[in-house]
């Protein structure tokens, strides 16, 4: 296997973890915030370094230079490939801008220590291929939100029930795959269990209520960080895609399609901004899943592009809503708030990120959405048009909420609500990426297309290997 020129991944993963431990005990929250920001910045820099280094190699997969874990355990635990290479910087960026945009008034409520821990777990998850380590990381990743809910004295039953089932499905499915499946057979039971786990983590209807509950009960920042990296989709790519039969994947795609339309409809009737964001995200995340599960090069390319665009745009969108919430509290969508004059820049960014998430021209989502829709319509000519409908509903919902928050009779507030410098930097970083990716899409699309082709080939190789083994197995039985 190819080797990077530096231990990028290990440093990106370990650094937040090392800083997370001491800042948990720091009573000076401002210092904790600064340290967390520094750790996130460095981790992001290492993640970008990993991506650039990997791209320069021109290989499908590679592992770290001086891979300590491989040296100790004699196994390539952390391996980067074309799927995960851009996801690590994306994950790092999401955490970085979230910490950067955290208002000073909220530093007491937002746990930087657990946030860094979550970042570390996320980056480790995104660096793992199918293995027990990945299963473990996927399960560990659900713990920090639960702890936050407990600390806030909220009822955790909905979350625990869903995540408990998720963990059981992951463990059961992977155990079944490794212990009970006969060689050469398509692992139906394991694939079903792992598929259910991935769908549950992705919030596919009707297993989505944990997500709305999470947004209700944790801080907005924690909820955004937990969902926007699309860990469920990653689990599906690593655990389900290589082993699931085509009809299984297409059933998943249909479920995701239903979720996309349902969530977009639900976004239209929400009366509070967090729940609205949750459904908007759910709809967009389901669009990504649809493309991933089609396993056609075009659909997969579209899905991988939309994955990045959704990650960037909805993180930005979430940050905007969170910034508004940090100023005025929970935002009711029942009436008009008239905040435009008091926060014009946030209004602009709200529209920019919102429009990017629905694939508006000249934003990063446009091309991805086009490819995705084309890929879906190729496979499902009639029902595939529901993707277009879901995007249309999402567009309507975003504009309705824009009007609710920023227009209407102006309610004069006693304090300035204008955007703060740190928030402005976070917002501008994301704006540059959203517009840059939209205006010059070819490099990103080519990279995702190459990844899609490799992933398709990998799946075909593994499925045909299984089919051959099955053939050999039956031939041996007949000989005996």
């Amino acid at each position: 296997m190819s080797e990077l020129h530096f231990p990028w991944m290990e440093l990106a993963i370990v650094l937040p973890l090392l800083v997370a431990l001491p800042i948990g005990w720091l009573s000076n929250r401002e210092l904790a915030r600064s340290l967390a920001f520094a750790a996130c910045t460095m981790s992001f820099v290492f993640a970008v370094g990993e991506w650039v280094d990997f791209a320069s190699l021109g290989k499908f997969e590679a592992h770290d230079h001086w891979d300590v874990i491989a040296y100790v355990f004699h196994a390539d635990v952390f391996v980067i490939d074309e799927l995960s290479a851009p996801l690590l910087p994306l994950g790092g960026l999401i955490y970085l801008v979230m910490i950067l945009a955290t208002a000073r008034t909220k530093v007491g409520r937002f746990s930087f220590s657990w946030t860094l821990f979550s970042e570390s777990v996320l980056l480790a998850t995104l660096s793992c291929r199918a293995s027990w380590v990945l299963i473990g990381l996927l399960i560990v990743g659900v713990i920090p939100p639960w702890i936050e809910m407990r600390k806030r004295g909220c009822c955790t039953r909905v979350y625990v029930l869903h995540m408990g089932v998720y963990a059981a499905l992951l463990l059961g499915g992977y155990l079944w795959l490794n212990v009970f499946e006969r060689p050469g057979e398509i692992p139906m039971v394991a694939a079903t269990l792992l598929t259910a786990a991935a769908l549950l983590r992705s919030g596919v209807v009707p297993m989505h209520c944990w997500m709305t509950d999470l947004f209700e009960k944790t801080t907005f920042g924690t909820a955004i960080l937990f969902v926007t990296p699309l860990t469920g989709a990653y689990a599906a790519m690593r655990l389900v895609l290589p082993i699931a039969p085509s009809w299984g994947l297409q059933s998943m795609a249909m479920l995701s399609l239903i979720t996309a339309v349902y969530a977009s409809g639900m976004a239209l009737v929400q009366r509070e901004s967090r729940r609205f964001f949750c459904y908007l995200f759910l709809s967009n995340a389901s669009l990504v899943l649809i493309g991933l599960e089609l396993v056609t090069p075009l659909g997969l390319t579209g899905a991988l592009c939309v994955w990045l665009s959704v990650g960037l745009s909805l993180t930005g969108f979430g940050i905007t809503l969170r910034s508004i919430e940090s100023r005025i509290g929970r935002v009711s969508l029942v009436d008009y708030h008239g905040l435009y004059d008091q926060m014009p820049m946030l209004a602009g960014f709200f529209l920019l990120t919102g429009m990017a998430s629905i694939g508006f021209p000249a934003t990063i989502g446009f091309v991805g959405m086009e490819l995705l829709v084309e890929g879906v319509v190729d496979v499902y000519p009639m029902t595939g048009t529901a993707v277009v409908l879901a995007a249309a509903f999402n567009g309507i919902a975003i504009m309705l909420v824009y009007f609710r928050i920023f227009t209407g009779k102006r309610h004069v507030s006693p304090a300035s609500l204008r955007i703060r410098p740190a928030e402005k930097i976070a917002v501008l970083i994301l704006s540059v990426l959203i517009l840059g990716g939209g205006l010059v899409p070819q490099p990103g699309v080519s990279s995702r297309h190459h990844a899609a082709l490799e992933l398709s080939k990998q799946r075909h190789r593994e499925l045909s290997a299984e089919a051959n083994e099955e053939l050999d197995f039956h031939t041996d039985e007949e000989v005996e």
Partner: protein
Amino acid sequence: MIDNLFLWLGIAVVASPSVLLAVLGLTTLLGRPLSESVTARLTSAAVVMGLLPVLAILGMMLAFDTKYVPIELGDWIALEQEHYHFNLKFVFDRLSVPFTILSFVLCGVVGAFTRQYLHLEVGYNRFFLCYAFFFAGMVISSLAGTIETLFFGWELVGLSSALLIAYFHERENPVRNGARVWSIYRLADAAFLIAALTMHKLTGGGDFGELMGSGPWPEGIAAIDPYHALVVGSLLLVAAAGKSALVPFSGWLPRAMEGPTPSSAVFYGSLSVHLGAYLLLRVSPILDQSWTLRLLVIAVGVASALFGAMMSRVQTDVKTSLAYASLTQVGIIVVEIGCGLRYLALIHIIGHASLRTMQLLRAPTLLKDYHNLENAIGARLSRNHAPWTNLIPASLRQWCYRFGYERGFLDTLLDNWIVSPFLMAFRWSDRMERGWTDWISQQPSRESDQADLHPESEPGRIA
């Protein structure tokens, strides 16, 4: 040499509104909006810098007897293995050149008018940003050589439309109307996108040249069979109906008049309202492939013209009355397109757009002049009724009045039969979800229920 000249002139035409959009957009995004005078000068410069090249192209086309000038900017995205190309191609032909010149002229006029009209208004910069979106969208749509490029411009026009209707955003009514128009646009855009994808599948690309066969507009013959022509054409008709406020989407047109007069003039009097008709003209060879489709187009046009004529007569304000008068004309233009009278439709668009822009820009001062006139003569101006109105029974006249006044009940029908059931179904789902999470939690599970209606006006709540 000539080809290069065409290329650079073509690039200049598209680049001028795009640069204006980039400058106004970036300065706004950075929180450093430009001053009024700089904005106005930039806008004028963009109009002139775009108009001169397009006039030069027209002159060269006439001089060299060229009917079709494609400007290929290459692939914006290309996935060779998948045969997927997003080609940036603009076309100067007998349809796009007049429409582009019209766009530049009317945008220029309205830009100059707005400079005075909105002087010292708080939303001056916001207006011109939306104007830049619209301007770029119109030019891109007019010159689009592929259906994706047309969709690109189409979306820009839609967004700017909704935001400009809600320009006076401290009042709820314009905002509600903006939201309504946006909703209809989005659904129309969905139909457009599906049509574009279907065309992609049928022809292997979205190039109008390939789809419409050989020969420049309007002589092309569509390279698809009647059945597919009906499917694609119907979807495009829905998209056009949404954009041009044709029946059954006519209800949004008077609502759009809530915006400032210059935007009403340039959007709903002249350019935007004709964009649907322009789309039908652009794909008119498809209409030739299916008689059913042509009849559909004619039916929609006739219905829209009749609705518009009936409604415009009973409106109580000048802008709404003009809006419905526009609808009548657009309906007739659509009928002309359905009948295959393409040049007539194009001339009709140009004439109608120019007249309506003038009428709408004149509207704010017209009433004042009217009152001055009445004051001068010391009596009300006479109102002549058409002699044939007395031949219609009173009950029918009353019904017609009510029908027109209620705007054909179209909004009510859409609300009662589509919007309400849709929202009711999802509200029911929301209640079910609440029941489910409450049951698992064994307590009320939604903190969001306690969200204050207006926390921003409570001093203690501001962080």
